[in-house]
């Protein structure tokens, strides 16, 4: 993305004297905050790249990788003869910095296999189980890719049918682990809501989590019904069909439609009976939200009423919002705007709770630069009151206030890849690490007496199999004991206001539902006393607080779990329960493929009515599972990473132009395994005669260094050929030299770019004998900002700015000397979810001797005029566009099938430009006078074709005569390209 564009635009700008390349590129910045000292660990089948701080995690990963290799070698009946490169990161925030791919890696990406260089890149998130599973998942991709390639190559059919994405990802999920309750939740929701996408339409959900899960489930069905061996046979017979469905017909004897019918029927039989004893969340609980994605509720009572704070994404940006719980359909109000500035760069969705204390201080964490920062925000004063960043802690999740508001507990992931519980004393800023081991600990919550923390952890005996149970840590003694136990996931504990009950979510009976356990405090005397009454009714004064005798205050209270009951019976999953003082429960529910907030008013009453479940058998034994470790002598098998380059691109091309003749060329790119060091070579020849063949070789050789925060590019070039501009008409030019550029990203959204070049330009005009020689140098400095949020055809929110200052000068003969100013400001005012007013202000000025022209015209800027046919040394441009949805989707049904299309969007636009120029012979001959004022007004339609290309049709009228009249003729302009 941005990296490549930056490099290419540099090449174009500074190697083309005509500066046609002044089409600027925005884009966010992939920042390498951290300078990793890469090492390589070599095992039997892998080269594992890691950094020293995560050595232990790398060895664990190596063990799991070798274990997976053995399993997959058997399953695929195939082996991989070269060592597989595995690149590990100890945290997702580090993973996001990788240069192995130019793409941005949002939090939902758990790892990837890049098949060009055969690299597998995987982050850890603190969970050993998930790390192991992702390694296995990605290795399934590696094996599948190798197996299919091997089958095709041996039959000489490498260009034959490829498996579709749903099969690729579905198989990776199928063969990397068991069907889990999260997957179950998604399928149950789809089947019961009637929205299950049939296999014949999997293309419509390509790349989505739903595709992963439906694909996996479909293949599980095939495996169970037709035999596991069939899965391998799809790959072994892949050359025997023109499309993948043919392979299905060959192996199973049935096509997609028939198999889909069977599969859907089996799912209905399986899931419809659930409705007998289970409910949809929205039917059994009160709706709090119903649009967008909403989760992680935090309840706050004030003298002005009750409020709910939660994380929400209804507009494309993730924010923290506040909702008044007064009856009457209140609208949520944004409290923290996420994803627009570095401060709140990413608000973690579905991976971190928020909390608010009774004074209204909201605690939350966001990614800000290299790591997460813990913020405290005063919701009464509407301002930030404090922020905390901790050295060595990369991510912070689920902050939880202590009852006395003096401390916050949270789960922190450190640089070694371990997630532990920490407590922060607010006043002193002192941080204590409460757990310190390889177990994954999260969702801490303070006990009613403030002396303990309850948290979810994999330190249970079942942790190696992915289970999480609840534990209590006594802060004074450091003792940790278990309060739930079993091969299931218990998480997000929360205490009731009276302190009697602990609510949490658990998938012990299927998908995640709310469970509650009556908690008893065991006093130091060993007597199980009545539970301490703690009232948390904020604003009612301290007189209602009764925290017991002084002895009780000072003693370590042991919490013994009593009766446990399942409070909710929902068909799909629920998360993050949050009590109200009256015993009601807010929670996040998954339904209709979204996350919404629901409320159960009488949760405690429901608890009383429910049957008691069998108590978990708590042994309190130390869990004896440990992550596997590779059996090697580390120092003998590890070494410092050394760059080895391999090919990224090799492409040849021949073009023919009626004016400029035939050109042929090639481009190559190589890079090292980590993608930090890249070379590009562009080579082509445009000679018209054989005498000129050597002079007409054009090339650019460039190196890009991307390892550190500041990225560098430098290179050399030689360009020679026939050119045209309005001043000199046709001329031959030979231009050769070198260039250098750097890019400093300030944040994800802003950066400075600097570039300079020097070269000798020999220009030979064809119409006269004049030769112009110049020794040119140029320097350009740009500020770029981009926090735009995109819709289907272009940005709908945020802004994009570029400001560039530059100077180009002939230092030898003074034939060329001009200054450059480019300002391109684009702001998008969101009017509703799908409509926006987009405004663009652009000023491009080149002033001086032999100042180059800018070009405007066409569908991308001044509509209604031919593409790039309006030129001048100074262009001022304004465009105002109202963007709206036109058709959401439509389809055409043919006798042989149905074709579906995505959205068509509309735009009402007004474009206006003022162009000035010192003039040239050409313009004088042409009769063009400067300054010129041109404009257009009209309506446009945009259609996104498969997410890769936007087709544009603009219809309108020109504004002419210096904006004094509108042309009688209507223009129609059809082209492609995203909205500005």
């Amino acid at each position, binding site marked *: 993305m941005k990296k490549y564009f930056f490099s290419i635009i540099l090449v174009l700008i500074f190697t083309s004297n005509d500066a046609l390349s002044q089409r600027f590129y925005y884009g966010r910045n992939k920042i390498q905050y951290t300078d990793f000292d890469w090492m390589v660990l070599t095992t039997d089948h892998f080269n594992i790249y890691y950094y020293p701080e995560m050595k232990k995690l790398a060895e664990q990963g190596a063990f799991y990788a070798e274990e997976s290799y053995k399993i997959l070698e*058997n399953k695929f009946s195939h082996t991989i003869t070269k060592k597989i490169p595995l690149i590990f990161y100890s945290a997702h925030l580090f993973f996001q910095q990788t240069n192995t791919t130019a793409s941005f890696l949002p939090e939902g990406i758990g790892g990837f296999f890049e098949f060009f260089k055969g690299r597998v890149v995987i982050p850890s998130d603190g969970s050993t189980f998930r790390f192991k599973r992702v390694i296995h998942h990605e290795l399934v991709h590696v094996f599948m890719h190798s197996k299919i390639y091997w089958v095709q190559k041996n039959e000489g059919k490498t260009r034959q049918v490829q498996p579709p994405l749903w099969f690729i990802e579905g198989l990776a999920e199928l063969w990397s682990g068991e069907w889990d309750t999260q997957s179950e939740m998604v399928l149950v929701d789809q089947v019961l809501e009637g929205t299950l996408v049939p296999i014949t339409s999997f293309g419509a959900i390509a790349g989505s989590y739903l595709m992963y899960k439906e694909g996996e489930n479909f293949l599980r069905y095939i495996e169970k019904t037709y035999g596991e061996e069939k899965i391998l046979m799809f790959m072994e017979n892949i050359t025997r069909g023109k499309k993948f469905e043919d392979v299905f017909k060959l192996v199973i004897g049935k096509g997609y439609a028939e198999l889909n019918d069977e599969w859907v029927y089996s799912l209905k039989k399986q899931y419809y009976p659930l409705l007998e004893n289970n409910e949809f969340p929205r039917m059994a609980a009160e709706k709090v939200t119903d649009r967008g994605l909403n989760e992680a509720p935090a309840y706050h009572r004030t003298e002005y009423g009750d409020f709910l704070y939660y994380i929400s994404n209804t507009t494309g940006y993730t924010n923290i919002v506040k909702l008044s719980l007064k009856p009457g359909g209140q609208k949520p109000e944004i409290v923290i705007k996420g994803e627009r500035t570095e401060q709140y760069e990413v608000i973690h969705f579905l991976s971190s709770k928020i909390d608010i204390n009774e004074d209204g201080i909201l605690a939350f964490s966001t990614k800000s630069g290299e790591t997460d920062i813990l913020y405290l925000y005063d919701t009464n004063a509407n301002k930030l009151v404090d922020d905390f960043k901790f050295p060595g802690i990369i991510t912070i999740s689920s902050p939880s206030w202590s009852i006395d508001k003096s401390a916050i507990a949270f789960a922190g992931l450190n640089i070694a890849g371990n997630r532990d519980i920490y407590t922060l004393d607010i006043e002193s800023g002192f941080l204590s690490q409460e757990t310190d081991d390889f177990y994954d600990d999260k969702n801490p919550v303070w006990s009613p007496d403030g002396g303990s923390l309850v948290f979810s952890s994999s330190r249970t005996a079942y942790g190696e199999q992915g289970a999480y149970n609840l534990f209590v840590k006594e802060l004074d003694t450091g003792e940790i004991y278990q309060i739930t136990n079993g091969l299931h996931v218990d998480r997000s504990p929360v205490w009731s206001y009276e302190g009697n009950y602990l609510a949490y979510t658990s998938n012990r009976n299927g998908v995640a539902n709310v469970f509650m356990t009556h908690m008893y405090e065991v006093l130091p005397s060993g007597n199980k006393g009545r539970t301490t009454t703690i009232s948390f009714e904020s604003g009612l004064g301290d007189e209602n607080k009764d925290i017991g005798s002084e002895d009780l205050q000072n003693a370590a209270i042991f919490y013994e779990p009593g009766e446990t009951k399942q409070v909710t019976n929902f068909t799909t999953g629920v998360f993050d329960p949050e009590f109200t003082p009256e015993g009601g429960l807010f929670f996040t529910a998954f339904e209709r493929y979204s996350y919404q907030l629901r409320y159960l008013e009488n949760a405690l009453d429901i608890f009383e009515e429910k049957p008691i479940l069998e108590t978990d058998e708590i042994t309190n034994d130390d869990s004896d599972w440990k992550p596997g470790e590779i059996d090697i002598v580390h120092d003998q098998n590890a070494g410092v990473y050394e760059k080895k380059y391999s090919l990224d691109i090799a492409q040849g091309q021949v073009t023919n132009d009626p004016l400029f003749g035939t050109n042929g060329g090639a481009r190559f790119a190589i890079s090292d395994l980590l993608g930090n060091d890249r070379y590009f070579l562009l080579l082509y020849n445009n000679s018209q005669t054989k005498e000129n063949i050597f002079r007409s070789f054009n090339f650019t050789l460039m190196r890009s260094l991307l390892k550190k925060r500041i990225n560098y590019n430098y290179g050399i070039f030689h360009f020679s050929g026939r050119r045209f501009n309005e001043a000199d008409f046709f001329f031959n030019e030979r231009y050769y030299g070198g260039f250098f550029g750097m890019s400093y990203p300030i944040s994800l959204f802003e950066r400075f770019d600097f570039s300079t070049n020097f070269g000798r330009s020999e220009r030979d005009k064809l119409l006269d004998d004049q030769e112009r020689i110049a020794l040119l140098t140029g320097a350009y400095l740009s500020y770029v900002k981009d926090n735009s949020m995109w819709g289907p055809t272009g940005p709908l929110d945020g802004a994009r700015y570029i400001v560039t200052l530059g100077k180009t000068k002939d230092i030898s003969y003074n034939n060329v000397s001009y200054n450059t100013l480019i300002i391109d400001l684009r702001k998008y005012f969101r009017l509703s979810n799908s409509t926006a007013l987009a405004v663009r202000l652009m000023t491009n000025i080149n002033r001086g001797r032999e100042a180059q022209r800018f070009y405007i015209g066409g569908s991308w800027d001044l509509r209604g005029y031919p593409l790039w046919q309006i030129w001048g040394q100074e262009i001022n441009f304004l465009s105002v566009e109202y963007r709206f949805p036109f058709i959401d989707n439509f389809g055409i049904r043919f006798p042989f099938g149905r074709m579906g299309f995505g959205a068509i969007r509309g735009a009402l636009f007004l474009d206006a430009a003022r162009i000035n120029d010192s003039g040239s012979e050409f313009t004088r001959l042409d009769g063009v006078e400067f300054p010129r004022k041109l404009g257009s007004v009209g309506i446009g339609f945009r259609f996104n074709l498969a997410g890769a290309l936007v087709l544009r049709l603009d219809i309108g009228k020109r504004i002419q005569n210096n904006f004094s009249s509108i042309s009688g003729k209507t223009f129609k302009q059809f082209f492609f390209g995203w909205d500005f």
Partner: protein
Amino acid sequence: MNKKIRTQPNCAKLFLFLLFVSLAVFACASGFRVSPLESDIQWTEIGGDGFHSFAREADDIENPELLFRLKPLSMVGSTIVTGDNTVFCCTQKGYLQAYDLTKGKLLGKIKIKYKMISAPVYDNHTLYFAAVDGRFTINSFDAVRGRFNWRKNLGVFESALTVSGDNLFAANRSGLVYNLDKESGDIVWEYQADSEILSGTIVVDDLVIVGSLKGIISALDKSTGEEVWQYNSGMILRATPSSDGSRIFWGTLDNTLLALDARSGSELWRFNTNGAIYTTPSVTKESITFGCNDGKIYSIDKITGEERWRFDTETVVNTSCITIGSTVYFGALNKMVYGLDAVSGKKIWEFPVEGRVVGNPAYYDGKLIFPVESRFLYVFGQNKN
């Protein structure tokens, strides 16, 4: 007086004649012919004999050396067979090729155009082979005269062919088992199994035994095709079985090797491994030896089913072993071929090859042949010089 007018030579006719001659020459030039040798081997098929035994009581090859590498046009897709000093291989790209084993030279090839993965049979100088598609999926080729005897389309064949007496037995992807007259290709009888058949048939006495992918093993009367017994293994059968004349040994994809009584179909024992078994066991007087996807070579007492030894290759072995004298030879996916002492299982020989060993080996007159994925046939033997 009428003069006879001399006409110009008819160029079109001349052209056609030359074309005909060229085609005739070309037609004769394709295919191949072998020189029949006096041999005590009546026929060869997968495993070298009618029981698919992958074993020879021959002299040990001391310190086998690479004699030559043969280079078929594409990767060998099926088991190779040898006979009359010739090795025959069917390739993934649809060629049937024959190589002279003395000189290591290509004798000729026949282009079928369709993938061949079914192991052929060489019987009495006639080659029987099958393809997965095309106009003729089962063929009889006279290797001495260099021409086809008969050709038929009987469906998709992926499993090994077998010959017994005057009959050729073949099972296709649709689960149809055919008894064909060797000479004419006429169908003597056909039998429909419960599901597709990917494993080869085997003939023991008067029984033709087939196994379907879903695990049903059926024994059919050789003459009539009537079912004599049936055994439901409950396991996936892809490997071709072998026999010692009274027992059948069958590897399954469910990590188990089965031993059945050939006459009654009763299970004698089963041996569990940790990987899928795609290979045909090598059968000797005392033991059976086979490779497995768990990377091990197992030697099992064929009477009791007790393990005698195992050897760990640390990679996948999905091709059969072959026992020559007192040595077990096999190739693995780690680009190595090995020789193990048949009694102790100790490694006594190994040789690196250029690709994964993906085809079953064959033996002929002191020569050991391995097909390797990089399209080579490695021929090992004792260098007499």
